[in-house]
């Protein structure tokens, strides 16, 4: 296990390098000037030149790239151009909010997906299946940008149960987590249903039934655990969708997370912040997938960490 973990951690380095290189290239090659964004159009040309020099933006791109890599090697993500703060500090201030949102979104997704998937998979073609899969189609189809305001109108404006925006107590988390978790719940529910239908035909299920177990008990005690293996894989892969979902959700709910920081940094062409945020998202994704692999081994003892 430890050997496996060390190998995966070492494999992080090339992934990080690839992410950094791609992000650096894309953000520097698209038009837009952070100095003009900061100083404004009316700034004196000499000041624009001076500021560009001060920030090192007048150096050749390759030189800037290697300087950035050199900083990264010693854990320095650079300094924000528009915030004039260390990028690591900016991200550290906002990362807990994003993780809180993503984790609660995941929790909502699981709480919705497991019962829906079980209902659907227990009796394919039945009323429960139709209802659950109907929810899944609606859940996948509604974009965050539409679902968020809909939930706000219902639960904040009409029912007045929950606050509209901002980060605070648990009540502030409910609507953004529902927004971000619904689409994922729909995908997971469909996966679980398919897996359950597959395992229902398995020999061990027939054995369980022949031992006198009821269909429901056999499904929950034997079928569900086996069906989980494919679902766990999807959970890890869906983490990317969940993290990208935070970008829109954080804007809608005025949630002070890394997603909102990234959107604002892209607009200001704040290169170090964009690179730092993308790297953070990418590393989070990789680490979550690594954790998923570990969970996979727990769910399915036949899998060995080799």
């Amino acid at each position: 296990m430890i050997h496996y973990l060390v190998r995966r951690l070492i494999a992080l380095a090339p992934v990080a390098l690839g992410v950094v290189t791609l992000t650096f290239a894309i953000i520097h090659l698209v038009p837009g000037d952070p100095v003009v964004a900061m100083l404004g159009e009316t700034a004196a040309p000499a000041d624009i030149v001076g500021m560009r020099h001060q920030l090192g933006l007048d150096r050749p791109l390759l030189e800037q790239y290697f300087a950035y890599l050199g900083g990264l090697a010693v854990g320095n993500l650079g300094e924000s151009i528009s915030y004039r703060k260390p990028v690591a500090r900016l991200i550290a201030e906002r990362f807990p909010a994003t993780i809180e949102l993503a984790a609660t979104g995941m929790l909502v997704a699981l709480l919705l997906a497991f019962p829906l998937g079980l209902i659907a998979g227990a009796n394919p073609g039945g009323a429960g299946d139709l209802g659950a899969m109907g929810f899944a189609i609606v859940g996948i189809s509604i974009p965050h940008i539409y679902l968020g305001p809909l939930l706000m109108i219902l639960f904040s404006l009409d029912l007045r149960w929950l606050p509209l925006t901002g980060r605070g107590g648990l009540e502030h988390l409910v609507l953004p987590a529902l927004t971000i978790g619904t689409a994922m719940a729909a995908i997971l529910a469909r996966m679980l249903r398919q897996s359950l239908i597959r395992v229902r035909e398995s020999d061990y299920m027939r054995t369980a039934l022949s031992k006198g177990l009821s269909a429901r008990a056999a499904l929950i005690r034997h079928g569900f655990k086996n069906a989980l293996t494919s679902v766990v894989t999807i959970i890890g892969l869906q983490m990317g969708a969940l993290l990208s979902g935070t970008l829109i959700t954080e804007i809608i709910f005025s949630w002070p997370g890394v997603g909102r920081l990234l959107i604002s940094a892209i607009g200001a062409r704040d290169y170090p912040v964009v690179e730092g945020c993308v790297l953070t998202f990418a590393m989070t994704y990789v680490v979550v997938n690594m954790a998923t692999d570990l969970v996979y081994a727990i769910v399915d003892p036949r899998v060995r960490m080799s």
Partner: protein
Amino acid sequence: MAAALVALAGCSHSRPDRSPSTIQVDIEISPTSTDPRFATDAISSRIEELIFDSLVKSDGDGRFAGHLAESVERPSPTEIVFHLKHGVRFSDGRALTARDVLFTYHSVLAPESMSPKRASLEQLRTIDAPDDYTIVMTTARPYAPALELATEGIVPAGTPLPAEQNAAAPIGSGPFRMADYQRDEAIRLERNPYFPHPPDAVQSILMKIVPDPTVRALELAEGVCDFSGNNIEYDVLPWLAMHQSLEVSKTPGTTYRYLSFNFRDPRLRDLRVRRAIAYSIDRNTIVNTMLRGTGRVATGLLSPGNWAYEGNVTSYSYDPEKARQLLDQAGYPARSNGMRGLTFEFKTTPEGARMGEVFQAMLQRVGIELTIRTLDFATYYADIQAGNFDLTSLQWVGINDPNFYYMVFDSKKTPPHGQNRSYYSNSSMDSLVEAGMSNLHPEARRKIYAHVQQLAAEELPYVSLWWVDNVAVMNRRLVGFDAFPNGSFRSLATLTLSGLDGGGDSSQ
């Protein structure tokens, strides 16, 4: 599921816990800077006005009136003397004197500050303080709009340059002080204890940064937000107006929306093509439908409230037939499909895409094909600055002195030296705007700018579209809101609160 989570959270929602004398104002983005020596964008300027005083302030008609200055004299064409009011105090109790004014200007002008405002002070040659309550400015040459140089927000002497852009603002002598600032989240303003105000006035303002326009509307409807100025989408205004607790106020504004051409394109240098485009756009219909009546069809940069406004200029009412004739004359005859082989690219941001589609449909009726290219703001802005566009539409905010024409139409003011992004060049226009800048006699200037407006309407460096109304949506517990034509938030400082419950209500 949500109900279960609410139960799990053990919560029932109520209005945010805040003092009844606190109001919430939703703004769309964070200010780029909270230091008046560096802030240039509209949101920063709106907030700056509540915290800092300047020597003069603009009034409603594009002129400037003394603010910190009790009186202003112009003893010679290049000299302006400001006599400061006595008894003005910063929010920490220090008296504001000429020393603070001098310090503020010196720190803006210092090359090491790299303040974006340095360029706007390029006409200022010297600034001196002969005594504690007198400031003398001299300009390099007779400069008519010299009072614009006196609009910098004053900070106390010794205020360091901002180390971090999201640091709370320095203190000022205006009605409020910035008590807290969390970038991308909120700004909290509290009363400057040394600035007189009525006892029932708003005591503190929570400016919450809410980027999504739908959410801003929902916050108003719910009663969480008390005031929103010029940042609510037109489509939801009728819905908000149905709420008993809300008042939707619409007043004439000075913000000017225009369609701009790239004069480096020989097709667009042809006046007949520009006029054809002007005749093709049904501005009345756009204002009445897309803008839901929140604008007035414009004749030029200066709105009717400006002292130099000239309304007697060539106008281009919707006339597609005339547009077709002009295009025929320009050598673009209609083909069998009605199109003329004239294709332009309209660059815009996502917010402007809908307007682009309207222009596209209207131009298609006269045989011009318009393709729409939607870009994120930074890319769009870079393209416009680099002259990498055919047509685009932008707006100018905060036009006061008509010298603005010099910045946008003088042939020397192309980027990066100015904002003539169309690369428009006309020697008559250059002579006029330069004369308007140096002539100190108001009546002579009025005549000069009447010619400028007539020439601009003839020549069409811009197609004037509309002046945007100032639309404020506010809770009825706010009393005494007085809209400024330039959309300023200044009136928030004099608002009082009625005893009404500001909570949300149901639609009528």
